[in-house]
């Protein structure tokens, strides 16, 4: 069965997933895939509850390993399973998986092993725990790796589809970056998910916003505000696959609009913004505004509070986009 037909088999289930948290959506997808694939193994490092991989562990205890608080061991244990023909998913907080960057680089990526790295609690999603837990550098660290595929889903539904797609349609190293719970809805059950293919969420010709992750919700809101306030027609694209980039769509929209903004829950340096800037510098030099975190995070009662502090609310994004438009627009 193809991923697409499997995913569209039950609309009510997908509607339910869309309302669930990001980590629950992923935890459920792992269990469902585990039912069909006896070679699937899920690993974690003392964060089974937090990453929701415990769901897989309860259903398939023999195919679940908790290595304790040992992220370097986690990554290389997964590498061993992949060498021996298994299809492992290794889960940890994005921040702490980065401790094993060199293991990921030297063992998984260099041998192009079929290991899926499930990095949760990324960006500001772990708002309460503060800066030590909020990873704002991981996209940069992962996308620099030669073979790594990097996926940053916008919402729970997209995260769910990403798990299916990465498991069923791709063999090789991948980094799936998800949040914790915060997941305002951006996509629909029918929205296609194809690796390396950006989705146009909203069309427009005055400017394009390329984004990834839950901030796309605010990007869409900002685009609506600007249409209302200034009559601007802004396209918004969900670039869920940060590597490999959808070069064709990005270059096409840069040419069509002539102005590019990027939005992400990460430093723009080295993140999606950096990736698109690299591409456009070679293919279609275009004025760009790179929006992202402005420094380390800190504890807050909600993700929204952190967005406010880092000027990532819809209003703040709209204001910055408007200034940028005023500076560069030839109209």
């Amino acid at each position: 069965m193809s991923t697409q037909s499997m995913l569209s088999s039950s609309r009510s289930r997908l509607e339910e997933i869309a309302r669930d948290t990001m980590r629950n959506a992923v935890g459920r997808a792992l269990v469902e895939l585990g039912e069909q694939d006896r070679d699937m193994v899920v690993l974690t490092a003392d964060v089974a509850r937090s990453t929701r991989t415990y769901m897989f562990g309860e259903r398939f205890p023999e195919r679940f390993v908790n290595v304790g608080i040992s992220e370097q061991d986690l990554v290389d244990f997964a590498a061993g399973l992949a060498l021996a023909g298994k299809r492992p998913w290794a889960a940890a907080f994005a921040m702490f998986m980065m401790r094993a960057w060199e293991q990921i680089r030297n063992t998984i990526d260099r041998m192009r092993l079929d290991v899926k790295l499930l990095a949760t609690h990324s960006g500001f999603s772990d708002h309460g725990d503060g800066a030590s837990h909020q990873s704002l550098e991981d996209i940069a660290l992962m996308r620099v790796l030669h073979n790594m595929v990097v996926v940053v889903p916008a919402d729970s539904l997209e995260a769910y589809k990403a798990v299916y797609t990465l498991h069923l349609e791709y063999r090789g190293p991948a980094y799936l970056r998800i949040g914790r719970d915060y997941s305002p809805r951006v996509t629909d059950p029918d929205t296609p998910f194809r690796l390396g293919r950006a989705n146009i969420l909203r069309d427009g010709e005055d400017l394009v916003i390329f984004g990834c992750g839950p901030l796309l919700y605010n990007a869409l809101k900002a685009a609506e505000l600007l249409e209302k306030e200034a009559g601007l027609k802004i396209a918004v694209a969900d670039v869920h696959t940060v590597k490999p980039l959808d070069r064709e769509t990005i270059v096409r929209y840069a040419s069509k609009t002539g102005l590019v903004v990027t939005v992400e829950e990460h430093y723009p340096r080295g993140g999606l913004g950096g990736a698109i800037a690299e591409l456009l510098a070679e293919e279609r030099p275009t004025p760009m505004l790179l929006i992202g975190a402005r420094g380390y995070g800190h504890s807050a009662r909600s993700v929204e509070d952190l967005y406010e502090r880092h000027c990532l609310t819809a209003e703040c994004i709209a204001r910055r986009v408007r200034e940028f438009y005023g500076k560069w627009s030839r109209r």
Partner: protein
Amino acid sequence: MRIEELRSIASRVRKRILRMAARDKSVHAGASLSVTDILVALYFGIGVKMDGKKPTERDWVILSKGHAVPALYAVLAELGLLREEELDTIRDIDGLEGHPDYRTPGVDVSTGSLGQGLSIGAGIAYAMRLDGTEGRNFVYVILGDGELDEGQVWEAATTATHLRLKSLVAIVDVNGFQLDGPTDRIKSKGSLAARWSSIGWHVIEADGHSFRSLLSALEEARSYPGPAVILAYTRRGRGLGLLERTGGQHVDPEYAKQFSE
């Protein structure tokens, strides 16, 4: 195979190592010569099943102290997997890699960054459990004593005992030296036997240059129903007087040339 035959294989392996050391002065000759008898005992005394229908129906050898790869190449040449002339290409732009690379025939896992092999081995051993070959096929992980400074080794060591991985055999080449000098001068190792056994490993101590001792240690490790570690006491540069006396790692290619014939 008779001990006599193992000895003559080991002597050919050492000559090949020096042949490689004569080609390139950055080759880690000392570490390769200390691990030679361990590899010969393993590949020719015990036997390594290098192929299987499934990757869990064969044995695996992980040279976690990857800088000793000349010893592995020399063994692979003895097995006919590498041609003798290929050994001269070590570290050439199109030749054999300076550290193990999985694309080289007979090399199971890419290494070179110390401290990772035991985790990888534990993952493979766990896959053997899932496929029902645990205790029938084995994963041998060869580490250096300096490498034990890496924290990850101990992460893996506790994972292995927690899971009681029967197919995992660790072999530590205890030659008493690491890159910057004698191991205990760089960082005290405490009692190696006590460290491993305190977390549940079955510890076997062996003379790493005696085939009788190595073979019995390997047999014991394979039959033990849990993870076993062999502490093989060796000498850096074994067989080459100059290195044995100094514990050195590298030799002058001109010097090595005299012994490689």
